[in-house]
């Protein structure tokens, strides 16, 4: 796709957060690819190594005319894609007040919870906290939707599909091209379906 950058396309910061092994890195790669297709300058930052072993992980993608820092500061994320409910709470202050947060309706209890020393926050508490930062929070049943396609692992691409609904200036083809570029060929159909099913799920939301 050729350079489409216009004055209207202002900088957009994306934060992705989840648990190591959930596929946040693939999702941020796809997101970076979309930004490049749109003619933005793009930077992406992520954590490798130790933190990936079942720990809390984030990656960040920035689209702008010119991006300096590869990181997003507190209150700078325009869109926050949370792959797990507790991780949505953990990083919510990264969101620009009034920004958009999409939360995978999925819990991975940390060890301290399964061993009985901590309590996993209930949905009501999560919503109460999210709503102090923004009214634009949306639950995405990404695991259920991915399972309906026969593979829970593609819930990351379902979430991207859901996100795409909130970026109307980005043509669908830019997303699908970027998905195809990043996933192994034998999984392209599955991932395209995952993307579309997530996108559709959000239809009708603001």
């Amino acid at each position: 796709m050729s350079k489409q950058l216009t004055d209207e396309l202002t900088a957009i910061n994306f934060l992705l957060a989840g648990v190591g092994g959930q596929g946040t890195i693939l999702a941020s790669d796809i997101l970076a690819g979309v930004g490049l297709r749109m003619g933005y300058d793009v930077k992406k930052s992520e954590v490798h190594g130790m933190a990936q072993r079942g720990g809390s992980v984030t990656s960040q993608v920035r689209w702008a005319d010119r991006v300096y820092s590869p990181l997003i500061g507190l209150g700078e994320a325009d869109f926050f894609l949370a792959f797990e409910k507790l991780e949505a709470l953990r990083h919510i202050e990264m969101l620009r007040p009034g920004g958009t947060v999409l939360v995978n309706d999925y819990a991975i209890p940390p060890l301290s919870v399964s061993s009985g020393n901590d309590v996993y926050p209930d949905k009501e508490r999560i919503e109460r906290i999210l709503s102090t930062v923004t009214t634009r929070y949306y639950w995405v049943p990404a695991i259920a939707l991915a399972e309906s396609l026969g593979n829970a692992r593609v819930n990351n691409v379902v979430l991207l599909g859901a996100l795409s609904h909130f970026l109307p200036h980005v043509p669908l083809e830019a997303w699908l091209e970027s998905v195809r570029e990043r996933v192994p060929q034998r999984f392209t159909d599955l991932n395209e379906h995952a993307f579309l099913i997530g996108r559709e799920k959000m239809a009708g939301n603001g």
Partner: protein
Amino acid sequence: MKRFLSGNEAVAWGAWESGVRVAAAYPGTPSTEILETLAPMPDVYAEWSPNEKVALDVAIGAAYAGSRAMAVMKHVGLNVAADSFFYASMTGLEAGLVIVNADDPFMHSSQNEQDNRRYAKFARVPCLEPTDSQEAHDLVGVALDISEQFDTPVMLRLTTRISHSSSLVELQGTRPPPRQEKPSYRIDTTKYVMVPGNARRRHPVIEERIAKLAEFAETFPYNRMELRDRALGIVSNGVAYQYAREVFPEASLLKLGMTYPVPAKTLRDFASQVQRLIVIEELDPFLEEEIRLLGIPVEGKSIFPICGELDQQVVRECAIKAGLLPPSARIPVVQPDKGQLPPRPPILCPGCPHRGTLYVAKKLGLVVNGDIGCYTLAFQPPLGALHTCGCMGASIGVAHGVAKAGVAQHNVAVLGDSTFFHTGMPALLNVAYNRSNTVTIILDNRTTAMTGHQQHPGTGRTLQGQETVQVEFEALARAMGIQRIHTVDAYDLKAVETALKDCLDADEPAVVIARRECALMPEARQRWMPLQVNDERCNGCGLCFQVGCPAIVKSSEVDAKTGRPKARIDPLLCTGCEVCAQVCARRAILFRHQLAQDKEQQE
């Protein structure tokens, strides 16, 4: 051609395009992907060496032989390779040598946050620092040119954010054609044999060299002055430059692409043109001290922190506190009262073969002198089965020292297979030689797991996946003079316990090899099979929770008698390693063969 590359990938491309012929490394976050990216490229030899010192010697050898060479390591790897780093600075080389060193501010995956620019100065080696992937790419070739022009090794210093953030890079996509004939080895003993007499002659040479490099730095194009508003002048380097750009778009900036040696005249010139001079740099006040040594008044760490990583948020907040920016520069943030959130530190994966061995060590009440690898994570509750971890290879020496000092409990050394080859071997030799009753447990998961599954001398494969000799721990230990050696399946808790008890009773040097491939290896994944809990047998005793496996979760069902929640196994996470099934006193967790039988009966 333009490619979207991480700093690490960009370095690999830069090395390939600038004709690096030999590259050696030992894996270590955040540097690992550099060699993984370079290895499949044509006409370049790349290897995983057993440790960073060997890797650097290999690269130095190649550069002595007249070929461009690169050694890659994480910051603490340079501690291991320091001896070689210093002699290479003394001797110089016959062709370019770049040492790619990745520091880890905030210690995302490390035991300390040492600032290795100190090593550059310590050894009189120039240090280059990129601010993004493009520069990471470009500076490899520049480093090699400098290396050849000044007859010096060059350090290319990355940090985690440079290594693991991606941006667009313009690539050449070509490389100088390979040499047709082998160069003859040039012998020059006064330069390359560092006996005192020769070394005394070399020392003034390297002092003069660094003075010449300081002169060169004045016109070095990656040192760049950007004059804007003169009220504030900022000296910055690496990723901190990006934060400075973002937070102070109007300020004047001096970006240093070479942070050692610094350009004195340029710095004086810059300082004279601005009203207030500050340094924004991560970790140590390195540039700040260099500038102060020139007699130029400057502020840095009185405003910005030494510890941890910077980002635009930290820089902005510190700048507001120091009066460099008005409070209105603050970005609005809502920080809700979240109460205490359950933490989510990294943990041993479901099916990790280390879990069972360490569970047994804990059950036997052993003091565990541990090491660095995935197994380090077993220090946390509920396992709590590892009690020291300092640096790679420390476990065996520390355990030997504990044994020689004498304590009431039994203590053991625990380390991984890759760590054993890295720096464990001389320490085991010491246990055998100086006869302590130290029991060394080698957790042999057939890979370097922590850094993402790299090959090592025990896997029988090279960096490129080619077959090679496979070193056997048993034979090695025997050759070192250890007679009591057991090899057990790490998933078999009884076998682990029997072997350990035999060694603990024996009062002689002993080795237990707990073998089982990492559960994340492709072959292991094929055998994954989630276990199940028999609800009728489980009474919620909670014993299985003590193995600390994330696949075992509390069920919503409560046992009527004990009043405690029963266990449930998350089928998305469980791999079927059966460690929990062996621990369960009520036989409530079904083994694989039981599940298979149940299935047959149903059919």
